[in-house]
């Protein structure tokens, strides 16, 4: 999976350098050439991590500095998730079909973060192996309505030393323009296969301890609701506010690793738009 990501990145960078001149000329045109958009986000984020024992301890844990790059060239793209409160999600992909109303893409996408050794140490589960980031190859169907968007991602997730798992994620986002504000209200649900869930939050018999019993939760789901608002401060600065609430199914939150049944992410930030 990592090799595939690198391959897509190298292809994009190679094409970019070969056509650097065109970037300036074509950046605002709706064409089959280069389109790009870069933003820098500076702000603060307050969240409850899905792992119960992982907290925001230091000041730097609250600070956020992210670059979001949107790039398109002849079907290949890198796309940040601007409609969402957290712009950390970056999709690499290829546009299979597009029209004014709908689109089909093949994307590489991260479904959830890794569980590092440090996280496991904090969860008193040091003997468990770290879990890799859940990266999936997904077929995305997008439907555009007047002020709304529906996406359906059907993905196969690469699981280390195991059969691939799968995920189905659907998200509805509704835009409410109010005066100079753009307010996005969204909700979504993600279904995860038993293989995927067992790998990330399950405990194998060989890893079981008295405090961490054998646990095979099976298929699970997560629900997200979100409110996200953007306000223009100047021609190249925007203010962003967002709150995301996630709810996990019982078999996820009952994991002996220590998973919260619901999490909250609140964000306040400023974006510089190049």
């Amino acid at each position, binding site marked *: 999976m990592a090799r595939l990501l690198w391959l897509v990145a190298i292809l994009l960078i190679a094409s970019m350098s070969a056509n650097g001149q065109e970037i300036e000329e074509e950046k605002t045109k709706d064409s089959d050439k280069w389109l790009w*958009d870069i933003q820098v986000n500076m702000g603060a984020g307050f969240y409850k991590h899905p792992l119960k024992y992982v907290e925001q301890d230091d000041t730097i844990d609250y600070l956020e500095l992210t670059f979001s790059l*949107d790039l*398109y060239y002849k079907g290949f793209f890198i796309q940040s998730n601007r409609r969402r409160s957290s712009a950390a999600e970056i999709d690499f992909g290829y546009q299979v079909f597009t029209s004014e109303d709908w689109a089909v893409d093949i994307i590489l996408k991260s479904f959830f973060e890794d569980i590092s050794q440090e996280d496991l140490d904090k969860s008193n589960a040091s003997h468990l192996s770290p879990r890799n980031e859940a990266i999936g190859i997904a077929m995305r169907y997008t439907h*555009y309505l*007047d002020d709304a*968007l529906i996406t359906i991602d059907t993905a196969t997730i690469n699981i280390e030393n195991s059969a691939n798992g799968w995920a189905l994620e659907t998200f509805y986002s509704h835009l409410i323009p109010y005066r100079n504000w*753009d307010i996005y209200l969204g909700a979504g649900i993600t279904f995860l296969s038993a293989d995927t869930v067992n790998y990330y939050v399950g405990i194998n018999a060989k890893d079981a301890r008295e405090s961490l019993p054998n646990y095979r939760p099976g298929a699970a789901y997560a629900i997200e609701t979100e409110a996200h608002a953007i*306000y*223009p401060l100047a*021609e190249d600065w925007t203010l962003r506010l967002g709150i995301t609430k996630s709810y996990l199914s019982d078999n996820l939150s009952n994991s002996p690793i220590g998973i919260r049944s619901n999490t909250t992410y609140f964000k306040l930030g400023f974006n510089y738009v190049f």
Partner: protein
Amino acid sequence: MYFRCLIPYFIVGSSAFVTGLLNAAENTDVPRLTALPNKCVALRHGRTCFAQITLRFTVLKPGRYCITKRNAKQPLYCESIDRYGLFNVEFQSKTKQAYVLVEQSTKQELATTVIDVAWVHQKTSRKRRWRLF
């Protein structure tokens, strides 16, 4: 010696310079109309932009004066003033808008100011609200 001789010239010169600056800042010779802020920023091109704008105006003689939008028949606001006036405008427009200071009795236009409309993003199509391409 030379310094002593130059000091009076320096004082006179400085005084004239400061007075000139003050006059330039006040510019009391002509009626004035200024807007603060003088630009409204929307998220996307083509979107109506909203802003609270303060219009300050200065006139040369007491009288009744009005603020109107350029090409509008009715004034937004009229007031009897001696010298200075202030008016808050709820700006709503997709394009730049000119405001005019008018002497009510003569209908003479005394001063004009323009509130510009700018935007962060260019693209406006339905799909472009959600993605770059």
